[in-house]
């Protein structure tokens, strides 16, 4: 998000999901789309099969989409910036860039040119393992198609170089003029049903709703007036990973967690539980007794999504109304009511009758949501922001005619290696992710019978050559060890994974892979890297 905000002026998907149908070329990097975003993957598959769209997949693993791809670039883990710079190198050398777009709509082009000049196909092949013919072919497909889309997910952002990776994607799109038109742009896929909305609403340490900065006195004044207070804090707060570190140090004494399970979802899990145990007060509000709730001093039982009304914003910025289907389960309360009660009891009364009244307030203080009112949502399939007034139809694709920040800003980045690379002691790279049958920490999906039948336990996916070397077969138990922890997992031999790389998921708290992962942080976006070096031995 930080990377796209810096280059384009807005951190969200530039296009709507329906526009995927008419793209001519897809460049999918760091997204296992069929598993994580199945309904978006099916659009890509349809466009490739029925409309002969070209598909380039850049992923170390032979993911399902790669089997359908025009071209699969198996670049090495963490070598994304080098690969993207290599593509730009070829494009500039061949004269495939969009000179008019660069001149009229962007700035800082010269420094980019200087940096990518150093990424010759030979050097890129050395860093990434992608040969120069494939690099050239990929550059040609992406640059020459009229409507090209870059699609990425956590495979791009969860690196110490995550912001660099995102900026490099943005650079590539601007270089070829592939942004600001229908079915043409840069599309980060968000992993949770309301991760876009939680960001939009200012559940972030540096902004109020609508990405309005807490350090801007004029903005603070607007919120002070609406909220009837006069001393809002003018300094950005701590990010999640910083909060955990501060709790470990004893600087954070109370943590109120609502609908999250950091003990399982966060890297270096033992560090997380150690930090949470030091708190004077841990409040956890959830629908199930999660691993995090087990550590809490107070657990507050919340109503589920079906038991309340409210709006969610999907990955394409579409704000939709979800209606109440059943009464809250006996003993539970909707999250918004719990918050209002606590706020009132600490001396800041909140007296909303319903989420509709809260949405009214959001409309008043959030310019991009000003026209997304309850009465309009009630009779529609939703509205995509920015939607500045009640007559505005919403915005399907961003940056038409000009970027949200005015000119698009090229920001040339250099390749840096991952925080932890394999060595003699820990010779494998561990990648973590999800499978299509489970979701995140499994709090919900592990209680669904058919999903448990299909994907009942954690496995370690491994290439057959590595398996042979380690003398293990499908189902053998191995000890996987990193500098932070050790876990015993059954082996699953897979042909789609390269040698010296292993894959596992974080759905299973009884085998919490995040006890092994690393919390090395991207310095800008503060996103942890997760993937790390491990050793594997037979037990």
């Amino acid at each position, binding site marked *: *998000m930080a990377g796209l905000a810096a280059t384009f002026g807005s951190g969200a998907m530039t296009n709507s999901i329906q526009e995927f149908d008419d793209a001519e070329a897809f460049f999918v990097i760091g997204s296992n789309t069929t598993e994580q975003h199945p*309904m978006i993957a099916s659009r890509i598959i349809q466009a490739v099969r029925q409309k002969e769209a070209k598909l380039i997949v850049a992923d170390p693993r032979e993911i399902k989409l790669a089997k359908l791809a025009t071209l699969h670039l198996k670049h090495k883990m963490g070598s994304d910036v080098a690969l993207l710079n290599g593509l730009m190198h070829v494009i500039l050398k061949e004269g495939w860039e969009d000179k008019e777009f660069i001149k009229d709509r962007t700035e800082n082009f010269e420094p980019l040119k200087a940096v990518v000049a150093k990424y010759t196909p030979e050097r890129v092949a050395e860093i990434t393992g992608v040969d120069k013919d494939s690099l050239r072919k990929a550059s040609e497909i992406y640059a020459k198609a009229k409507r090209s889309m870059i699609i990425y997910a956590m495979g791009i952002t969860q690196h110490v170089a995550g912001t660099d990776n995102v900026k490099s994607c943005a650079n590539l799109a601007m270089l070829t003029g592939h942004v600001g038109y229908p079915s043409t742009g840069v599309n980060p896929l*968000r*992993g*949770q*049903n*309301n*991760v876009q*909305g*939680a960001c939009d609403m*200012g*559940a972030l*340490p*540096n902004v109020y709703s609508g990405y309005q900065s*807490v350090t801007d006195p004029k903005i603070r004044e607007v919120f002070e007036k609406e*909220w009837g207070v006069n001393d*809002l*804090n003018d300094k950005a*707060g*701590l990010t*999640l990973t910083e909060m955990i570190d501060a709790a470990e140090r004893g600087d*954070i*004494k*109370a*943590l109120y967690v*609502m*609908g999250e399970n950091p003990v399982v*979802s966060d890297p270096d899990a033992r560090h997380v539980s150690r930090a949470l145990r030091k708190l004077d007060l841990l409040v956890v509000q959830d*629908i199930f007794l999660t691993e995090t709730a087990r550590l809490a*001093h*107070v*657990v*507050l039982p919340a109503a*589920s999504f*079906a038991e309340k009304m409210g*709006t*969610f*914003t*999907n990955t*394409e910025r*579409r704000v939709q*109304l979800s*209606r109440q*289907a*059943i009464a809250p389960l006996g003993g*539970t309360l909707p*999250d*918004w009511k719990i*918050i209002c009660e*606590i*706020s009132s*009891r*600490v*001396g800041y009364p*909140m007296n909303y009758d319903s989420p509709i009244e809260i949405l009214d307030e*959001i409309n008043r203080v959030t310019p991009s949501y000003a026209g997304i009112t309850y009465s309009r949502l009630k009779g529609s*399939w939703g509205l995509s922001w920015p939607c500045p007034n009640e007559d505005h139809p919403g915005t399907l694709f961003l940056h038409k005619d000009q970027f949200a920040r005015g000119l698009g800003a090229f920001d040339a980045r250099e390749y840096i290696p991952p925080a932890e690379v394999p060595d003699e002691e820990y010779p494998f790279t561990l990648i973590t992710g999800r499978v299509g049958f489970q979701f995140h920490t499994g709090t919900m*999906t592990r*209680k669904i019978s058919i*999903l448990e039948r299909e994907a009942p336990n954690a496995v370690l996916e491994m290439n057959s050559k590595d398996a042979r070397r380690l003398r293990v077969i499908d189902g053998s138990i191995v000890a996987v060890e990193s500098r932070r922890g050790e876990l015993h997992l059954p082996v699953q031999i897979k042909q789609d994974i390269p040698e010296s790389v292993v894959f596992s998921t974080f759905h299973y708290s009884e085998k919490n892979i995040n006890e092994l992962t690393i919390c090395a942080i991207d310095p800008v976006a503060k996103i942890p890297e997760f993937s790390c070096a491990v050793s594997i031995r037979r037990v």
Partner: protein
Amino acid sequence: MSQTLVVCPFCGCGCSFYLEEKEGRAVGVTPSREHPVSQGSLCVKGWRAYEFINRPERLKSPMIRDGGIVRDATWDEAFDLVSRKLISIKKEYGSGALAFLSSAKLTNEENYVFMKMARAAFKTNNIDHCARL
């Protein structure tokens, strides 16, 4: 039996479907044919999204840790304890000692009031959620 249009609780695609209710319980899912994202289809998770709602493991009462023991409590007791402790920690260590973790699973309205509470009631910007994970 009634059918209510809801947004799927899982990934970011934003599919909608009709949640089927029978005698106060969620019992099934019907895709929405006209919905611009789902267009009448759903993934394997969406089709079964009703199943976890009425599971017996759902939390039904606030709980409080008393020494080493965790016991059920009334809402009034839980509200009272949380608000008293938050106030006393703020008084003793300042608002910087408080932190709030919101959720990518909750509604916009809930995220908004949660961040409003952190900022207006406790005067801290220590609020985040798992967008980075």
